[in-house]
């Protein structure tokens, strides 16, 4: 098998695995955070504003790992440096 075919194959498979694994963890974590925040709002509706704002900030931080995985998989598919090196 030629090296560029091997690189393409490995890149695509790795991109899929990256986004698959990288989205499971943040999804579970965000679900937990959301359920805890809903419980907190149900117990203390007066604090809903503060809880919601903290929830958004926390969700953004949890989500950033999934975004990193997405960016890595996009780089692997569209602007793969090894692929460009072998094709040129």
């Amino acid at each position, binding site marked *: 098998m030629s090296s560029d075919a091997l690189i393409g194959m490995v890149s695509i498979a790795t991109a899929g695995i990256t986004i698959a694994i990288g989205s499971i963890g943040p999804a579970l974590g965000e679900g937990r955070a959301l359920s805890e925040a809903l419980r907190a709002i149900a117990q203390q509706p007066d604090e809903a504003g503060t809880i919601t*704002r903290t929830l*958004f*900030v926390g969700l*953004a931080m949890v989500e*950033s790992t999934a*975004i990193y995985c997405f*960016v890595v998989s*996009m*780089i692997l598919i*569209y602007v793969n440096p090894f692929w460009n090196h072998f094709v040129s």
Partner: protein
Amino acid sequence: MEMSSVTPDHDVLWQWGVLRIDHTIAFTWVVMAILILASWLITRRISTGTRISRWQHLLEMIVEYTRSQIREMAHSDPDRYLAFIGTLFLFIAISNLLAVVPWFVPPTASLSTAAALAICVFFAVPVFGIASSGLGAYLKEYIKPSPVMLPFNLIGELSRTLALAVRLFGNMMSGAKIGAILLSIVPFLIPVVMQLVGLLTGLIQAYIFAILAMVYIASGTRARKERNPEVEPEPSGN
């Protein structure tokens, strides 16, 4: 944005020698022009009476809401931070919301714009921190709770700037990319729904960017607030 590109930086509109106008710069200028024109037109005929125009209502609502949010985060006078945080929020919000306009590529979907905004926050943290508590007290924050933590504090400073940039870029780029992919699979109804979801996430991303910038600045000015015992320290984040 083309389907096979991850950044609008390479779509050149006009080139003369080394001078190059790409989509990112052009649409940044569009957003700037909209913001400047709108604020000039609204504040031109501003009044303090009981009958005010609906646009003045809108502007007052935005400014008042931003002030109240900053006051809750910083526990101090919001006017110091209003210009910086409000500008960040309005610029990101307008460019994200205009993503529904055909052929408009949001400049925040480019890593250059997101990194530039994050670097502004990176430099704003020491500026506000030193201005409020002095150079010595600000630098002393880095060796708390012990000097062993100095490299971790420095790495944290850098990594949260990177996280801020990549978060905004990744969210906006993924919205544009998923729209392009869906357009080639199910052309009619589904991309419209995704665009509507994109409006929501775009506004939330602008809100989160401004809130995180405020959290970082508030954690940089913590030294002054510790004399104030009823205020709890802000989270510093990743």
